[in-house]
């Protein structure tokens, strides 16, 4: 059997940044996995995502959150961006692993599954929907407020299905 889980691109911030973008993503894989290790320059907040530069009200999500005291759930519909987990407080890195499933097919809407944890804040599982059948070729990640700190890392992998 062939090995897969191929690194596609990697970003390490050398300075603060208001966003990061992976563009021209090849359509040659089955799933994408994006691993982000981030801190926010001011305070933890949501990681936001847009796909293929779509700013329309085409996104929705369902989340499950635990903050050490209680567990909560919530959802959003017809939003202009996807909301995933925490950026992390300054100096306290948060890790979010995004699974972008069946991202290159042009028949179905796209679903993203993300698990996020910020040890000093909370833990999330979020499912996001982008109501568009286009193949995903661009991923924009940005913090809901402030900036990503220097040293934040973003690694994109491709997983190819077997025959």
């Amino acid at each position, binding site marked *: *059997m062939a090995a*897969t889980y191929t690194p596609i691109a990697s970003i390490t911030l050398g*300075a603060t940044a208001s966003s990061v973008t992976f563009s021209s993503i090849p359509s040659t894989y089955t799933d994408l996995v994006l691993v982000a290790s981030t801190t926010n320059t001011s305070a933890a907040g949501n990681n936001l995502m847009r796909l293929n530069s779509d700013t329309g009200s085409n996104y929705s999500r*369902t989340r499950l959150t635990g903050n050490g005291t209680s567990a909560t759930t919530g959802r959003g*519909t017809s939003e202009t961006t996807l909301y995933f987990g925490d950026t992390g407080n300054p100096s306290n890195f948060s890790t979010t692993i995004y699974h972008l499933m069946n991202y290159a097919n042009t028949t179905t809407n796209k679903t993203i599954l993300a698990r996020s944890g910020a040890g000093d804040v909370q833990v999330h599982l979020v499912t996001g*929907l982008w109501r568009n059948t286009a193949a995903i070729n661009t991923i924009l990640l940005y913090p809901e407020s402030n900036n990503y700190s220097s040293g934040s890392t973003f690694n994109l992998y491709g997983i190819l*299905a077997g025959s």
Partner: protein
Amino acid sequence: MPIFGITASSNMSTKLTDFFQIATTTLGSAQSSFTFSSIPQDYTHLQIRFSCQSSDTAASGFGNNRLNGYFNADETATNYYNHALVGNGDNPVTSEPENTAKWAGNATRNSSAGWGTNVIDILDYTNTNKFKTTRCLTGFSNNDNTTGTGSARLVSGLWKNTAAITSIKIIPEAAVNFKQNSIFSLYGVKA
């Protein structure tokens, strides 16, 4: 502040060498279940990644979209256990301890905007000295504010059997079909 971007088309040359393709199927037509059979015994763990819709037309209730998983054709539900932590968007988070095989994630209902999305790890699947355990991240969103039309669910599963796993059958809890374009992929992970 600068905006960092990168062109991802310049494929990095190194592959991670411990994650292997085994099989994938995209359904060309509806079918009542999906099975990976003759699973090679060459790996330490398995990962199933799949997106699916079902033909379920129930008016509401995310429970109708849960999936059962059976190993080695053992379809005796009481040989399995699962616990789940579930958020459906507006109801209190639900714990689902059950003596059943509902460890295998979620589909979405017929005509849903979204697809049930599932990443399941099956640990030490060839080890004949221990019962088998699974970990599932699953959920879906449908851009719908009706109760039960979204889910984010963490599930742990147990099969009380020490046999090496050679087949995995995934089947909707309700007696419905997986729809066309549902896609199922199996991977092997080496230690």
